[in-house]
């Protein structure tokens, strides 16, 4: 692990932390939903990076692909449900 990657991990962690703050703070349900959407993408990126730093196996990238797909579908579904009840 080079120092650059450690700094990058810290930055990704910071971004996830800020997103979680938005997730908890709201104020509208759409803010929370958007925060979880962002969190999905951040987690996908992190999974791929983790797959490299944990020894270069390409197993985690399969997990990342599935995570991206399921995350997208979940967010879209909740967005559709939220529209019904104001």
């Amino acid at each position, binding site marked *: 692990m*080079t120092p*650059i*990657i450690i*700094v*990058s*991990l810290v*930055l*990704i962690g*910071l*971004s*996830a*932390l*800020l*997103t979680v*703050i*938005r997730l908890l703070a709201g104020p*509208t349900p*759409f*803010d929370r*939903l*958007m*925060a979880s*959407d*962002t969190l999905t*993408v*951040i987690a*996908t*990126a*992190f999974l*791929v*990076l983790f*797959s*490299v730093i944990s020894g*270069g196996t*390409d197993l985690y*990238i*399969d997990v*990342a*692909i599935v995570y*991206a*797909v399921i995350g*997208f579908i979940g*967010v*879209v579904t909740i*967005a*559709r449900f*939220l*529209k019904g009840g*104001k």
Partner: protein
Amino acid sequence: MVILGNILIFIGSLFLALGGLGLIRMPDVYNRLQAGTKATTLGAMGVILGSAFLAPEMLTKAVLLIVFIAMANPVSSSTIGRSAYKGGVPLASRSVRDDWEKEEAAE
């Protein structure tokens, strides 16, 4: 190759962090969507491509993942934005214009 990968990962994570900051600072859900979508799309693309440079055996899957994120992320953001608008979330008070509201009122 390794150096390029490191640089890409760093730039990507920098944009991810900026996106997180945008999520905190922007005044309403639409502006937050703007910051969130763009920054995380490019940020995730950078991190994924950079990781693929460090481990070339997963380059093909990484390319597919990048294309998927580039297609799916704007769709989910648009959907959230549209449901927020239809669900009655107002624009921030400093907004200057709303063409859509005029249309809906006219109907």
